[in-house]
């Protein structure tokens, strides 16, 4: 069957099978920034946005996103670069496999809550597992990123 959707602002028409999951469709079509991990909806590395909402592409059937707007890490490269720098500065990039999913969750958090508390940040990151860092560094990086954005907005 055909899947017609927009991926990172571009209209696409992709051949899919009815029992295919979105992570497989995306990776097969070159969106390799979407990582594949547990395939059971647990680890969060496959996080993307569908119509602006963070979802796990490994548990979402491709057929379910017909006509919808999909954003992968490839579609938010500038934002990802900025957040990535904060993660690197705090030493939490280590193996890096979880980073693209984590960054998609951070962008969703930013969209959902203007000034998140530590508790809210951790709540939004609960679905992104990281075997390297223990999350304290991530929390530090996100807070600095948010503060940086806030200060930038104040200057403007």
């Amino acid at each position, binding site marked *: 069957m055909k899947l017609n959707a927009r991926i990172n602002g571009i209209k696409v028409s992709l051949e899919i099978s*009815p029992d295919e999951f979105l992570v497989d469709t995306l990776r097969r079509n070159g969106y390799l920034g979407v990582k594949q991990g547990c395939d059971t909806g647990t680890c969060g590395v496959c*996080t993307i946005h569908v119509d602006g909402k963070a*979802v796990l592409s490994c548990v*979402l*059937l491709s*057929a*379910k996103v017909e006509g919808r707007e999909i954003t992968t890490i490839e579609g938010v490269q500038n934002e990802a670069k900025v957040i990535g720098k904060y993660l690197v500065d705090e030493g939490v990039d280590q193996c890096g496999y979880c980073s693209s999913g984590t960054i998609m*969750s951070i962008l969703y958090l930013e969209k959902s809550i203007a000034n998140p508390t530590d508790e809210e940040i951790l*709540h939004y990151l*609960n679905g992104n597992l990281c075997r390297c860092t223990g999350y304290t560094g991530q929390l530090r990086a996100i807070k600095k990123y948010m503060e940086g954005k806030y200060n930038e907005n104040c200057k403007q």
Partner: protein
Amino acid sequence: MINLITIKNYVVPQTVEEAYGYLTSNKASTIFGGGAFIRMGSKNISTAIDLSKCGLNNITESDDSIEIGAMVTFGDLESSTILKNHFNNLLAISVKDIVGIQMRNIVTVGGTVYSRYGFSDFITALMVLDAKVKLHKGGLVPIELFITDGSKEKDILEYITIKKDNRRASFKSMRNSKGDYAILNIAVSKKENMCIAVGARPGRAILAKKTMEYINENGINLDNLEEALDVLTEEVKFGSNSRGSSQYREKICRTLIKRALKEADCLEA
């Protein structure tokens, strides 16, 4: 990658009646909510029926009730400004520890409630409210009856309707780690009468009716709390699985109920 489920056809009906036609036309037809739990199993599905276009995606409020469409996601429940104003935000609180927000943006109310999952946090919370499920053919069924007996025949859950009766409520669960399945979950509510539900026992959620009766007759305060909890652990059957033994569940149940009663301000002076 090996697909554990197979799907031959995928249909997106425009009305519930059309969806019902697909559902009854073939034994192996399956309604898809979010599909998150189906993904974990192994199933050959002839026709997967997606209800996304059937107009079941909203939470609405009238003078006396709240209606939650079957395709509303747990993420929608969590961010709903309508639900925030009722039952001490019970329904949003009940789903907030389920995996991560990316999963909750997929999981649907209808998928969970129609499947009557024993591990469900949301069902336990619904049980202490004056809630009914609306089935396409079966009509309105009280939540407790539906969770106990299910649907007599293949049906489609359209929405859940909840009476706005200003009851106070609280939900508590115990988990090994954040985002894991609950080892046990409980909910309490109070208006004139007390209502207590226990779920993830690991069996389906049930109402602790003898305990409710005891409290409604005697009231509940720090002096008779332990006696009330004895009635509860006597009547509720706890089971064992890899997450916890029946004895462990019984112990934590007492503590969770105490905390919930305090939080919902149900303990008399």
